[in-house]
């Protein structure tokens, strides 16, 4: 396999063809903030938090779905990027109903982490306060659309790791939402194995275990990565 050489924030990187910029940055020890990226499942570039600047290319590209190419000069932390990343997080907060004070994952939330990382202390965009449902028809889990950022981690985990494909995205624009089965209540979807991988994959409090209360729930963020390593490399410990 051929190797590509490039620089990321001035650091020289040599990496196999086909790798993404996000992987290459990791290799080079450069941190790029992410939200929809989840180790172990395919990337989709849904959240736009990992946008980077590439010399000679006139637009910002998401590092998680952009492949490396020979001689690329990548910048991951310019002022423009910092500004856009902050805007992305502000928009995520003002788009849904994220009320941290009454959320099960308050303190263990990757959207909160992203806000802290990009230095967001308030949002400059007017809050939309959309009317959204909560689905608690499942025996063990619940889905709160108010807190969903449409990262589709649940969709990908259920499809690619569990193989049940319970989740999908329906609707367009502001009406987009996660659906289970054929837009049925989650509890009525026979394909659901109740494995809970989607719940652990979810970065916010949108998918939760029933009975958890405010700030009480911690998600097992490494579960999917562990399962993939276990299957592919037969390493069963972590």
């Amino acid at each position, binding site marked *: 396999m051929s190797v590509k050489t490039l620089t990321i924030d001035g650091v020289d990187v040599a990496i196999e063809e086909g790798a993404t910029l996000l992987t290459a940055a990791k290799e080079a020890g450069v941190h790029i903030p992410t939200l929809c990226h989840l180790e172990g499942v395919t990337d989709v570039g849904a959240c736009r938090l990992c946008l980077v600047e590439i010399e000679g290319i006139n637009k910002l590209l998401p590092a998680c779905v952009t492949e490396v190419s020979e001689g690329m000069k990548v910048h991951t932390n310019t002022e423009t990027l910092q500004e856009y990343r902050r805007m992305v997080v502000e928009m995520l907060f003002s788009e849904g109903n994220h009320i941290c004070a009454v959320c099960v994952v308050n*303190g263990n939330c990757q959207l909160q982490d992203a806000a*802290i990382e990009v230095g967001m202390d308030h949002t400059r965009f007017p809050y939309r*306060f959309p*009317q*959204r449902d909560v689905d608690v028809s499942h025996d063990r889990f619940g889905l709160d659309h*108010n807190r969903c950022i449409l990262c589709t981690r649940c969709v990908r985990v259920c499809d690619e790791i569990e193989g049940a494909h319970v989740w999908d995205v329906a609707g367009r624009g502001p009406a987009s939402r996660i659906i289970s089965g054929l837009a049925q209540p989650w509890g009525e979807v026979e394909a659901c194995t109740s494995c809970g991988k989607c719940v652990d994959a979810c970065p916010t409090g949108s998918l939760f275990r029933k009975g958890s209360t405010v700030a009480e729930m911690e998600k097992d963020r490494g579960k999917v990565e562990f399962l993939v390593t276990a299957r592919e490399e037969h390493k069963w410990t972590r």
Partner: protein
Amino acid sequence: MAKIKLATIWLCGCSGCHMSFLDLDEWLLELAEKVDVVYSPVASDVKEYPEDVDVCLVEGGVANEENLELIRIARERTKFLISFGDCAVTANVPALRNMLGGAEPVLKRCYLELGDANPQLPNFPGIVPELLDRVRPVHELVHVDLFMPGCPPPADRIQATIEPLLRGEKPVMEGREMIKFG
């Protein structure tokens, strides 16, 4: 040197931020040497928001006519306005009613549908302030100079925010210690 004129105001919030302010314990004594509390629901009995206030901590979102009037007066008469806590910064829990679509359905639900013996809408013009259609964060209505999120912001974050201000410096709101929501 003249003392710094400090005010705190309480709009639509649970007073948790003010309670957290009182959690500053002994440091309040140090603070008292450097500031005059010119207006505050927990530290003074002044009814009228005074002129020429240096710093004001605003707790709560803007939910009714009275909140709106007070925040406009406070902005006009204050040099440095701080959004104090999640309700002021994001509208937070009071804004849960925004999803129900305006003040009317909320009032009807509370006072008519759930009213026991004598269901009626509260109506005392000039005494009971009218609800605004939406609860809004402070910075959507007036300019805010600094944001201190948290529900409530813990006492050490309040101290870390106020201390630099007393020295005439702007605090650096960065990292989980200073800007965490919830």
